[in-house]
Every structure is written in structure tokens, then in C-alpha cells.
């Protein structure tokens, strides 16, 4: 049971003073100046630990069972609350709510995936890359005359930009939805949304003598057939597209692997590296340089894993992360921050979500191998957190942990006997992975609690909760059967190509792109719109929303969509008009299918999810809150993500910018 903090205690903590300032008082009771112009001037210290995807029900249960003593200690010092998440509860959307202090109408990130209104083709929501517009060709080589650039599409100011304007120093470590990092003098390094060097969300390479074992069109990886001849494998390692060359071929690196004729050991020779791996051994980071033309190259880092030497040769190579020592794309502010971390720790994970869920999902890595890889991620996070804590003396430190999210996605199937992918044998070994992950988070929190002084405000948060993913909805198939979407051939059973190539737009009124988004095919907005904007669109959106909420799964009798939010009812802010018309809030256990988000129209409306990607968080915001813990009493009974932004403003005595919609959780 938490108790509201007395104003006296709040003052002692150095926080109440700031809160008073927010009400217009120029000074705290002790006469401490509150708005401080420079780094050394603020005595206030705020640490925000962000554990992606930590769920309040599971956290609460394991606290009750005595398994999370540090979280229990933090709760007893202040408060534990569910933290209202975004609509929809996707990480880029939810973290943007926190970053900008708004709902998606304010920051314009509505989904992982948006669409091009001219082509209906899916696009990244978070960033856009623009290549050089002026080039000159000499022979087969094209030289850019002006630089290409990458843009962060999130709108509004990030809270650390506001802090900077008021002289409050901040370090923002891998917060999602900040790629490329927005301009600031604060120390920031990008997280979720940061691509690998191929420009993708993560593409592993897999060299094997048995490529037929892996589906040829796997997401997130490339499979290469190799041959063992005289105990030697020769292959080409594909790098980024070479936009300097006419046909844009990938930059390739030749490499060789020499197999020990007797033992399960091999030597890899690539560029200036020569290293020996035993079977089932990871190489650690290796730096590769991809040369476009003699004067231009890009540096990347990756890890090799020798899965098997014989009878079948299998070599996995992680997605090539941007090299923090020589970043080909912008990942940090100032740029020297990434270099500084690299000097201290050596190469480190820079790709958005570093654990390779695609490799696990496609059977390239097994459960144990995936966890070994993710353990590297977690250990690295822990070491870098210590480094930041060592030098943290004022202002704000935000620190992000990804493993809590990634492991819940991949291991829910072994926690839950009802899951279609449950496997009793695997569950014996890995059924406790999620619980162990929460305990690791607890150990990390314990470490932080042991390192901070009593005046430091500590907030521990997650962006959303988690639930099982049993059944998939093919939204575009539902729209087709409901008469809102038509294929050019009415007798065609399905269309499995992405981007709606067989959709008859002249007869289509609505379509789904992204993980929660449904758009009305509006005249004047979409290239081949059919529905008038305004009243006609509004009426159609409400009609479809009602039908979606009424739709039940014939297999279970349950509703598939818990809430179909009409955007106009839930979004405010300058960018509300860019939102999809309907945001699907799925019922517990349901999610969009893997194929519908990219504009496919499969045959079945509903399917079992038998993949290893078995836990998810695409549900209604009401059923998937995140967590909030504070080492001070919290007045707010139902805090939301954007309230934490308002809290940070209040704590540092900054008048809340008008676009921010939250209120301080400490406000009485």
C-alpha cells in the first residue's frame, strides 16, 4: 500500500520545490533556485528505467510470490501502478507518447507501418531515407553530387529537447522511436527503429549445405547454399546495396571457412580476420568494411556463430550492425557519444531490437542459441548502465532494456499450455524463461537501487503489457468478405503478394495496412479513393467499427476485436488528420496476422498462430497497460505514458509546453 508523499518529504527530496514552481512559485521553500541555466546548477536527479513490455499482472503476481524483491522494495518506497498505454500499444507509438507527451495525434506515429496514399504500399512510419537527388555517372559508377539523408518522422519536441532549452542535462539511452536521433546537444543514442547496415530491421546471413531446410522466402534473413570441398567452404558475404553502381548490386565480401578434418572446429578467414570457432561457439564482434568504390566504404559489425561443422555445415552471422566507432548512419548525439561508448566497451549492439527473433522463428537459431545471443544484449545493457550511473550527477538519465519485450514475444508458447505452439518437452527447459527474465530485471533494479542516493527520483516504466497470441485475424480478408474490399477477379481465392496488387480500388471502400490500422479509401487522399471525406467517411468508419466489435471467432465464440477505436474519438493534436480511421484493439489472445499488415488478402479470415512469436501486445489499450513504479508516492490513480512527460517537466520546474497533454503524477 503506498501513501501520498507529504509536501515536507517531497521538498526534502528536492522534488516538491520543482512541483511548486510548476504552479507558478518562483522558489522552493528552502529557497533553492529551480530553473537552472547550466549543467552544474541543478541538484535534481531523475532516473527513468524503461523495461520494454513488462506486464503489470505478471509483475504483480511474481511480487506477491516473493520472486521480485527489488520491485517490491520500490513499491513499498512509493508506488506501483498500471500505466495506461497508447492506442495502439505498439512500442514506437507508446514510446512516442512518452517522448512527446502527447497521444499519436500529436506525434504522428500511429503504427509501425504506414502506407503511401499514391500506391497503397506499406512504408516505415518512423523514418524515411532520401537518396541523393543529383548524381553523375562515370562508366558504371554513379557519384552523388548532394548527400542523401535520413529523417525522423516523429513530430513534436522530445522532452529532452525541452529540458535542454531550460539547461537541464539529459542522457537518453536507446529510447525507441528516436532514429535518427533528433537534433540536440544532450547525449542520446538511438534504439528501436535503428536499422542494420542493409537498411533493414535486421537481416541475418545463414550459410548452409542444407538450405532446403529453411523456407526460401524467410523474413529477416538470407539463406545461402554452400558446398564443402576439401574441407573448405567459399562464400560471398552480402553487404549493403551499392548505390554507386549502375545496377545497384550488393557490396560483397569473399570469405573462406577451413574445417578441421578431425574435430568440430573451423577457421573463418574474412578480410583481415582469421579466427577459430568450435561448434556452437560465438565469435564475438567482428568488424567488416564494405567498399563501394575505392574512396567510399562503410563499416559494420557482426557476430559469427558456428552452428554445425558436420555432417551438415551451418554458419549463422548476425545482422550487420552499424559500427558505433565509424557510424555510416546517424545513431547518436553528439556523434562522439557512440564513439566514446565504443572506446570504453568495444563494438556494441546498435540495431534497434538486437536479439534476432527472425532467426529463432525460422529455426536458424534454436531456443538456447537465441537466449545466448540475447544474454549478450542484456549483459551489455547492464555494463553500460553502470557506466552511465558512474557519471550521472544531475538532470535526467533515461535507460532502456529490450530483452523483457523480446523474450515475452518468443517464449510465451512455453509458459502457456493453451498456446498452439506449446511443446511440453521444450517447456521443461524453457518454460521459465519469462519468469527468469523478470527476475533478471529485478536484479538490475536491485543494483540501481543500491547505487542511487535518497534524493534521486527513480521511475521504472514499461510501454505496454503482454498477452498470449493464439489466433490471427486477416483483416483484409474480413473486409473482403464483408464487402468493403474487392479483388479484380471476384473468383480469386486469395492474393498473397504484398501491397494489394490484385485489389480493385474502384470498388474498395476500406483496407488494412500495419498492425492495428484500418483506412477508409478516401477520395482526394488515396490515389483511387471511392468514399467522400467528411460525413460519408465518418459514417462508414463507425459502421465498420461496430461490425468489427460484433465479430466473433467461430472456433472460440469470443470477440476478436475488443475495441475498434474511431480515430476521431481518441486522438487530439495537430496530426490527428493523418491517422487511420479505425485502430483495432484486439481481444486477449488475438492479433493481426503476419501477412495482412503488408496488404495481403489470404484465404482464411482467422488462423491459429503456431509460430514461436507467441506473445504480443496489439490488443486494446485497456487490457494491456504497462507498469509504473516510483520511489515517491504517486497521487495519480490512473497515470498514462504522457503523464510521465508532464511529471518530468514539473519535477524540473518547467512550465509544460502547450502541446503536452498529461499531468504530473505527483500533483495532488
Amino acid at each position: 500500500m503506498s501513501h501520498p508523499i507529504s509536501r515536507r518529504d517531497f521538498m526534502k527530496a528536492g522534488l516538491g520545490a520543482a512541483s511548486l514552481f510548476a504552479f507558478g512559485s518562483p522558489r522552493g521553500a528552502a529557497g533553492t533556485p529551480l530553473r537552472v541555466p547550466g549543467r552544474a546548477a541543478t541538484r535534481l536527479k531523475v532516473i527513468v528505467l524503461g523495461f520494454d513490455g513488462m506486464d503489470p499482472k505478471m509483475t504483480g503476481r511474481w511480487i506477491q510470490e516473493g520472486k521480485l524483491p527489488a520491485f517490491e522494495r520500490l513499491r513499498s518506497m512509493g508506488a506501483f501502478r498500471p500505466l495506461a498505454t497508447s492506442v495502439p500499444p505498439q512500442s514506437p507509438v507508446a514510446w512516442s507518447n512518452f517522448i512527446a507527451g502527447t497521444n499519436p495525434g500529436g506525434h504522428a506515429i500511429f503504427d509501425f507501418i504506414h502506407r503511401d496514399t499514391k500506391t497503397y504500399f506499406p512504408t516505415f512510419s518512423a523514418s524515411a531515407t532520401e537518396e541523393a537527388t543529383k548524381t553523375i555517372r562515370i562508366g558504371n559508377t554513379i557519384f552523388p553530387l548532394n548527400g542523401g539523408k535520413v529523417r525522423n518522422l516523429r513530430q513534436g519536441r522530445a522532452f529532452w529537447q525541452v529540458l535542454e532549452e531550460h539547461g537541464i542535462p539529459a542522457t537518453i539511452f536507446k529510447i525507441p522511436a528516436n532514429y535518427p536521433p533528433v537534433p540536440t546537444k544532450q547525449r542520446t543514442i538511438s534504439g528501436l527503429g535503428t536499422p542494420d547496415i542493409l537498411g533493414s530491421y535486421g537481416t541475418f546471413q545463414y550459410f548452409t549445405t542444407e538450405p532446403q531446410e529453411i523456407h526460401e522466402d524467410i523474413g529477416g534473413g538470407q539463406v545461402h547454399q554452400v558446398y564443402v570441398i576439401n574441407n573448405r567452404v567459399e562464400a560471398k558475404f552480402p553487404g549493403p546495396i551499392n548505390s554507386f553502381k549502375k545496377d545497384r548490386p550488393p557490396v560483397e565480401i569473399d570469405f573462406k571457412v577451413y574445417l578441421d578434418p578431425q574435430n568440430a572446429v573451423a577457421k573463418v578467414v574474412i578480410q583481415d580476420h582469421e579466427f577459430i570457432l568450435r561448434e556452437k561457439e560465438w565469435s564475438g564482434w567482428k568488424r567488416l568494411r564494405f567498399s563501394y568504390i575505392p574512396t567510399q566504404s562503410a563499416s559494420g559489425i557482426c557476430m559469427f556463430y558456428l552452428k554445425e561443422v558436420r555432417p551438415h555445415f551451418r554458419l549463422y552471422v548476425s545482422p550487420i550492425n552499424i559500427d558505433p566507432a565509424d557510424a555510416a548512419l546517424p545513431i547518436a548525439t553528439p556523434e562522439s557519444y557512440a564513439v566514446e561508448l565504443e572506446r570504453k566497451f568495444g563494438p556494441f549492439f546498435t540495431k534497434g531490437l538486437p536479439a534476432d527473433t527472425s532467426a529463432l522463428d525460422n529455426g536458424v537459431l534454436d531456443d538456447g542459441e537465441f537466449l545466448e545471443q540475447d544474454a549478450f544484449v542484456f549483459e551489455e545493457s547492464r555494463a553500460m548502465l553502470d557506466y552511465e550511473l558512474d557519471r550521472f550527477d544531475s538532470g535526467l538519465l533515461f535507460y532502456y532494456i529490450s530483452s523483457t519485450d523480446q523474450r515475452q514475444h518468443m517464449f510465451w508458447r512455453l509458459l502457456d499450455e493453451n498456446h498452439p505452439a506449446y511443446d511440453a518437452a521444450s517447456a521443461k527447459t524453457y518454460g521459465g524463461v519469462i519468469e527468469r527474465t523478470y527476475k533478471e530485471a529485478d536484479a538490475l533494479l536491485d543494483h540501481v537501487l543500491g547505487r542511487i542516493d535518497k534524493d534521486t527520483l527513480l521511475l521504472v516504466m514499461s510501454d505496454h503489457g503482454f498477452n498470449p497470441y493464439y489466433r490471427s485475424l486477416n483483416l483484409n480478408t474480413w473486409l473482403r468478405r464483408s464487402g468493403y474490399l474487392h479483388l479484380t477477379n471476384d473468383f480469386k481465392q486469395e492474393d498473397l503478394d504484398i501491397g494489394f496488387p490484385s485489389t480493385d480500388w474502384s470498388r474498395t471502400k476500406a483496407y488494412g495496412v500495419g498492425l492495428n490500422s484500418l483506412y477508409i479509401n478516401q477520395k482526394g487522399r488515396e490515389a483511387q479513393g471511392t468514399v467522400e471525406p467528411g460525413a460519408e467517411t465518418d459514417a462508414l468508419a463507425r459502421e465498420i467499427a461496430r461490425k468489427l466489435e460484433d465479430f466473433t471467432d467461430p472456433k472460440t465464440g469470443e470477440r476478436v476485436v475488443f475495441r475498434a477505436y474511431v480515430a476521431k474519438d481518441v486522438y487530439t493534436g495537430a496530426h490527428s488528420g493523418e491517422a487511420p480511421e479505425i485502430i483495432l484493439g484486439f481481444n486477449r489472445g488475438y492479433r493481426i496476422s503476419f501477412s495482412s499488415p503488408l496488404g495481403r488478402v489470404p484465404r482464411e479470415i482467422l488462423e491459429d498462430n503456431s509460430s514461436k512469436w507467441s506473445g504480443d501486445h496489439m490488443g486494446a489499450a485497456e487490457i494491456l497497460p504497462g507498469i509504473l513504479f516510483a520511489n515517491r508516492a504517486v497521487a495519480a490513480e490512473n497515470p498514462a505514458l504522457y503523464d510521465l512527460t508532464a511529471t518530468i517537466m514539473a519535477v524540473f520546474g518547467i512550465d509544460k509546453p502547450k502541446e503536452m497533454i498529461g499531468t504530473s503524477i505527483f500533483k495532488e
Partner: protein
Amino acid sequence: MGNEKIKIDKALVDKLRKLAELSGYSSVEEFVTHVLEREVAKIEEAGSEEEIKKKLKGLGYIS
């Protein structure tokens, strides 16, 4: 703006001329330019779509 000459088989040129007239183009050059521009745009679009497809695929939520 400079002009380049391209050799095209005579039978095809005859066909193009006929189609240009039927479609209301003022010249065969105008017709050929229009058709080529449309085809090139398609190819460019397909290339960028392929790249987008590859990039999105690493996102675990989709396949």
C-alpha cells in the same frame, strides 16, 4: 535539351505510328516518349517496392 537517336525495327515503327494516330498523339515521338516514361516509372517503382519489402521483413511482427 539534347536529342538522342535510337534505332527501332521498321515494322515496329509502323505499328507505333498507327497506334500514335489512333490514340490521338501528335507525333510518334510523343507517343513513344509517353509509353517509355510510363514503363520506366513502373520499373523504378517496382525496384523501390522490392527494397521496402526486404527492409520491412526483419520486423518480427510481420512475414
